[in-house]
């Protein structure tokens, strides 16, 4: 094998850089690392590889590792001096890049239908794209990787097939790596594998049964090993209790839906995984308006009495109505409630006029013009309702219990293997490990390789396999953290539509009943003033007392002498007439 190293635009045999030792460490969902040792006069020389520079290592011309120099510690001992270079693989970029998602925000929130634009925020909702489509774990991870690529991370998306939908998960200020680990807690049998072979490394996510298998013969190069079946991690059942809190017009109720696998389980079995998951419920706000209307009966004396308070105490038989006119043609009068635009009904002010003649004990009026200002509408008595806002409930992920069960329940083998050979020719990482030469069950154990450490100098390979402890698959308590760390997303509609929570503003009705009566110039026949404390004292002006046919009695100015001083006064007097 020919090992070469590309650094600073130059590819040379790795030994020409003074590298005396190479060790590659790969761990699932953690940063791959290569440790290079350069022996020499380290105290007086500059580092061979500068920090934050890129390095690629090739094996027979094939990409074997690539990454960034992240640490350059200097080691000195009686055995000599050496620089140690720690080169981090591309996962390092994902650890150091905060994942952000596009959210919709209005350019001008005051507009009725504002134009929206995308704003990238580190508050993210996992499991939902910006168009409102719920994403599977695989699709969400793809979005994370694409975001990293858009930020300059030199990666390409490889294989990923995790069509598992999860509850919407809102979190903030997490790195791309944290996001991926958070997602994969639901399917802890998944491994992340970066292939450094292509010119642009590919990152793949493979579930246990999607990984290629590799068989290790205990009689060949195995120096030591340990292995144990993890019956203790097997779970008999997965029961997910989805809780939603729904709200309609302030009425709140909770709704619980249970999803379980196997179907026959109850959740009360020992070691059963029972998770309570809050989902955002539906929220709806309606505006409701009760209105009462009545027909407009302008020819009815009682209708006018109901609208003109002054007519209330006059006997209906003493009232006559004529010359009725209206400014509107709408059929009904609004009595109670208001008419708003959302009701899709017409309402307008109507001035209803007529000439009323009436007589009672104190006055007699002929053809008094009366105008009543009312609100007319084509609405009828009833309850009107309109949807003010609606947030649909978050959908329950299908078959999530089954997916968790299938990911956790199969018997897993936990252990380590150390092999030693002259050449490291096999790549165990990203594979299912089976072992022959031991117990028969090991030959099909399909153990997931979680960590591989390869020491090129010694030809030693350290392999660690088993459940992914960092994903919580190691015990029941850790598994339940998937649910405990999950909070219902309260902002998913905001991300899509830029709508913020309603402030309770409801469009008020524009038209409400008006009570407004106008009297026009009346023609009184008689007016009588009475002393309320003495009914025998009264003033009565009655046109019937004027005997002649055409004479007007009115206030007239006249001259008077008051104790020798000339003044004026007004007197009620008629114009002269012939007797």
């Amino acid at each position, binding site marked *: 094998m020919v090992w070469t190293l590309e650094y600073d635009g130059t590819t040379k045999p790795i030994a020409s850089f003074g590298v005396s030792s190479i060790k590659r460490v790969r761990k699932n969902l953690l940063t791959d690392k290569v440790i290079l040792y350069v022996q020499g006069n380290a105290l007086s020389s500059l580092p061979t590889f500068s920090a934050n520079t890129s390095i690629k290592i090739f094996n027979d011309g094939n990409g074997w590792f690539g990454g960034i120099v992240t640490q350059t510690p200097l080691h000195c001992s009686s055995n000599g001096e050496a620089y140690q270079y720690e080169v981090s693989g591309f996962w390092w970029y994902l650890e150091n890049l905060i994942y952000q998602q596009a959210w919709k925000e209005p350019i001008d929130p005051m507009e009725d239908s504002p134009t929206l634009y995308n704003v990238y925020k580190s508050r993210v909702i996992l499991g939902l794209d910006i168009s409102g489509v719920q994403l599977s774990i695989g699709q969400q991870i793809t979005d994370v990787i694409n975001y990293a690529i858009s930020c300059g991370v030199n990666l390409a998306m490889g294989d990923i097939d995790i069509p598992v939908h999860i509850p919407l998960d809102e979190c903030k200020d997490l790195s791309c790596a944290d996001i991926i680990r958070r997602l994969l807690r639901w399917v802890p049998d998944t491994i992340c594998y970066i292939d450094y072979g292509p010119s642009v490394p590919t990152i793949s996510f493979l579930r246990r049964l999607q990984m290629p298998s590799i068989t290790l013969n205990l009689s060949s190069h195995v120096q030591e090993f340990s292995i144990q079946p993890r019956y203790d991690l097997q779970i008999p059942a997965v029961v997910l209790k989805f809780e939603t809190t729904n709200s309609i017009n302030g009425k709140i109720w909770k709704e619980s839906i249970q999803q379980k696998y196997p179907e026959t389980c109850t959740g009360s079995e020992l070691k059963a995984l029972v998770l309570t998951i809050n989902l955002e419920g539906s929220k709806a706000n309606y505006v409701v308006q009760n209105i009462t209307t009545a027909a407009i009966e302008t020819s009815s004396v009682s209708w006018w009495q109901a609208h003109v308070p002054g007519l209330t105490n006059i006997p209906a038989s003493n009232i006559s109505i004529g010359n009725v006119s209206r400014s509107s043609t709408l059929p009904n009068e609004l009595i109670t409630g208001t008419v708003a635009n959302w009701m899709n009904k017409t309402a307008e002010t109507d001035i209803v006029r007529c000439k009323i003649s009436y007589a009672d004990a104190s006055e007699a009026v002929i053809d008094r013009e009366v105008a009543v200002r009312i609100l007319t509408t084509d609405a009828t008595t009833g309850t009107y309702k309109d949807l003010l806002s609606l947030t649909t409930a978050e959908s329950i992920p299908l078959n999530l219990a089954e997916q968790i069960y299938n990911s956790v329940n199969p018997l897993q083998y936990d252990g380590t293997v150390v092999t030693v050979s002259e050449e490291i020719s096999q790549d165990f990482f990203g594979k299912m490990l089976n072992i022959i030469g031991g117990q028969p069950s090991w030959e099909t154990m399909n153990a997931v390789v979680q960590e591989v450490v390869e020491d090129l100098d010694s030809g030693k390979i350290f392999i660690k396999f088993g459940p992914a402890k960092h994903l919580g698959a190691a015990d029941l308590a850790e598994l339940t953290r998937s649910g405990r760390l999950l909070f219902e997303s309260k902002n998913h509609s905001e991300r899509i539509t830029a709508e913020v929570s309603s402030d309770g503003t409801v469009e008020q009705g524009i038209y409400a009943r008006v009570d407004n009566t106008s009297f026009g110039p009346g023609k009184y026949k008689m007016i009588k003033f009475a002393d309320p404390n003495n009914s025998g004292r009264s003033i009565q002006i009655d046109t019937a007392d004027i005997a002649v046919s055409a004479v007007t009695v009115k206030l007239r100015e*006249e*001259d*008077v*002498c*008051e*104790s*020798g*001083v*000339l003044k004026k006064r007004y007197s009620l007097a008629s114009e002269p007439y012939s007797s």
Partner: protein
Amino acid sequence: MNDEFLTRVSFAGVPHTLPHSSDTSQATLYPITPHDVCKTYWTLSSLTVSYVYAINGIQTYRNFSATSSVAPKNRLISPATFEMTNFDSQTQTSYIVALKLDGVYFDIDDKSKIGLKLIFEEADSFNLINLCLWPIPGMNNIAREFTFLNKTLSAYLNYQSPPVTSASFSNFAMVPEFIVI
């Protein structure tokens, strides 16, 4: 004690029953306001005239009054008359002052201009001298202004020359006195 009263009056401030004439040439006290007319008609209690004149070195002093006893509120029925006539045997002159309130004169185009008939005269038996409120054509005259009811009027000493060789006329005053109610 004079009682307060209130009565309807004409535009001139006098009872409607009083003659109202539009022939203002009959008025000697013209124009005065309806307010002055009203005050004079209803509350005038006396009219005092005083003056001094000298003819051919003989000086004559006059100071006489005309009064009315008609109470103000009774003037609605009967107007007050202020008239005094006297004869001076020494000077052989008769003198008279009269303010007759039994009629008013008004400008038919401007009813704020009212007139009253005021008479003042002193004349000798030989028509050699005459004191009145207007000059007499053909005679010499001496005019003296006086104020009456806020109006400036003139009184005249008219005389024949000769035989009058010297004449003077001064201190003419006509003072009304009003009842306070």
